[in-house]
């Protein structure tokens, strides 16, 4: 139980894909361009896709790579799991939830989503089975959704302030992400301090 809690905590805050690893800033910026609801829709899609992709990845890792010692096929098989899951979720979004996802532009961008690739390649808990891996991926995707929501709030504040023209858009969002990454790093140290004491 404690391991699961530490996994959840690390995926959300200590090892947040966006703020601790710097992966996926531009995608979260695009997804949060309209507001809270698009960020939540993007987060939901990402959670589903990460869960399916991680399950496929785990199967490929255990039953193909480790069984036949095909370590050099790790990158292609992981990428294949990402692609298959992204296309499957896109198909589902178009058939099951057309009213929510409309013209599927958000679902189309999942194939080349850097955050999704980061979740698949970075989060590899060696202990536990498929459920633990999927849980880790889901929590990591929730961390990306949290980052998107933070970007929405920052964007609302920045619209009211006098940002120089050259810094508008992605440059100022990267600077903001960097400052929040500093905060997250210190937060991790604070919580580790209380955890150890």
């Amino acid at each position, binding site marked *: 139980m404690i391991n699961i809690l530490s996994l959840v905590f690390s995926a959300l805050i200590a090892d947040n894909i966006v703020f601790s690893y710097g992966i996926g800033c531009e995608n979260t910026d695009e997804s949060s361009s309209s507001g809270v609801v698009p960020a939540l829709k993007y987060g939901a899609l990402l959670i589903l896709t990460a869960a399916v992709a991680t399950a496929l990845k785990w199967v490929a890792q255990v039953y193909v790579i480790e069984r036949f010692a095909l370590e050099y096929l790790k990158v292609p098989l992981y*990428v294949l799991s990402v692609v298959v899951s992204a296309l499957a979720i896109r198909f589902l979004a178009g058939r099951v939830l057309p009213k929510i996802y409309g013209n599927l532009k958000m679902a189309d961008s999942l194939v080349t989503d850097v955050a999704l690739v980061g979740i698949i390649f970075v989060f590899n808990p060696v202990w536990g089975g498929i459920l633990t891996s999927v849980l880790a991926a889901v929590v990591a995707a929730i961390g990306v959704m949290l980052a998107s929501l933070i970007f929405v709030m920052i964007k609302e504040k920045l619209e009211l302030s006098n940002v120089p023209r050259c810094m508008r858009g992605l440059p100022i969002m990267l600077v903001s992400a960097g400052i929040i990454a500093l905060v997250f790093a210190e937060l991790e140290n604070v919580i580790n301090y209380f955890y150890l004491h």
Partner: protein
Amino acid sequence: MFKKNPIFEKMIAITAAVLVTKTVACAAIFSMVLLMVLVLSSVIANPIFGGKKGNTYRAVYMVIAAGFTSAAELVLLRVFPLLHSEIALHIPLIVICATLISSSIDSEGFFRSTADSLFSGIGYGIALILISALRELLSTGRIFAFADYPGVTVFAEWFEPIEVIAEVAGSLIFVGCALGVVRMIADSKREADARRQEEFERIKRGEHETLVLDEDGIVVLRSTIMRIEREIMEVEALEQIELPGAVELTIPDDDIKFEFKSFDPEPEKEDEDVIFEDCDND
């Protein structure tokens, strides 16, 4: 390569610019592998899809790029293990960066799109190396660190390295500021070009205060044109005036003939010494 640079203009695949630019060596090796994967994957994927860049293209391209990336990783591991150790953690990024760059190219035709892939990859590599050089200099005071080699010391001991730039947080801030600076320079150049073009349009319409286009299409000062026109008018006016006793110079068939007209309307008849009656200048 520069006008449509993937990082500075299109602002795609920024994640690599944040993660890979810790050292120049890492950025250079990453760029070379990325360029190879980008070009080879484009050579295979473009004929299949004929220039159409949809969702299926991206999916297939990613798988092809993953194959080439895996092959490149194997080659690096066997032949250049030191180079592999520099970029081992960033291998998966090559796949996604190649896909993003290839999807952003909107040219049609096999050769054109492959050439665009090649030059986009080169431009991306140049941008990565520039960012990594500045980042390494500011974070360590040295440059070109590789494996056990600490690098060339550029700044003297008085320089206090800004170590936070080597971390992810500092890298995000640094890359954001770098994008802003480049955009500022590009915007000022673009505005200057737009102003120059608008001014030329005004000159062509004849609305400019001081400049006009002459007959040969060359931009000249309006005052120069007016002065030339005035001089032409003065010469024409002078030509129409007939002065008594003026020398008329005619040059028919390359012969110069002088005809002197007397200044007095009634010449003295007493003087029989006529000096000149007719003069032919041979």
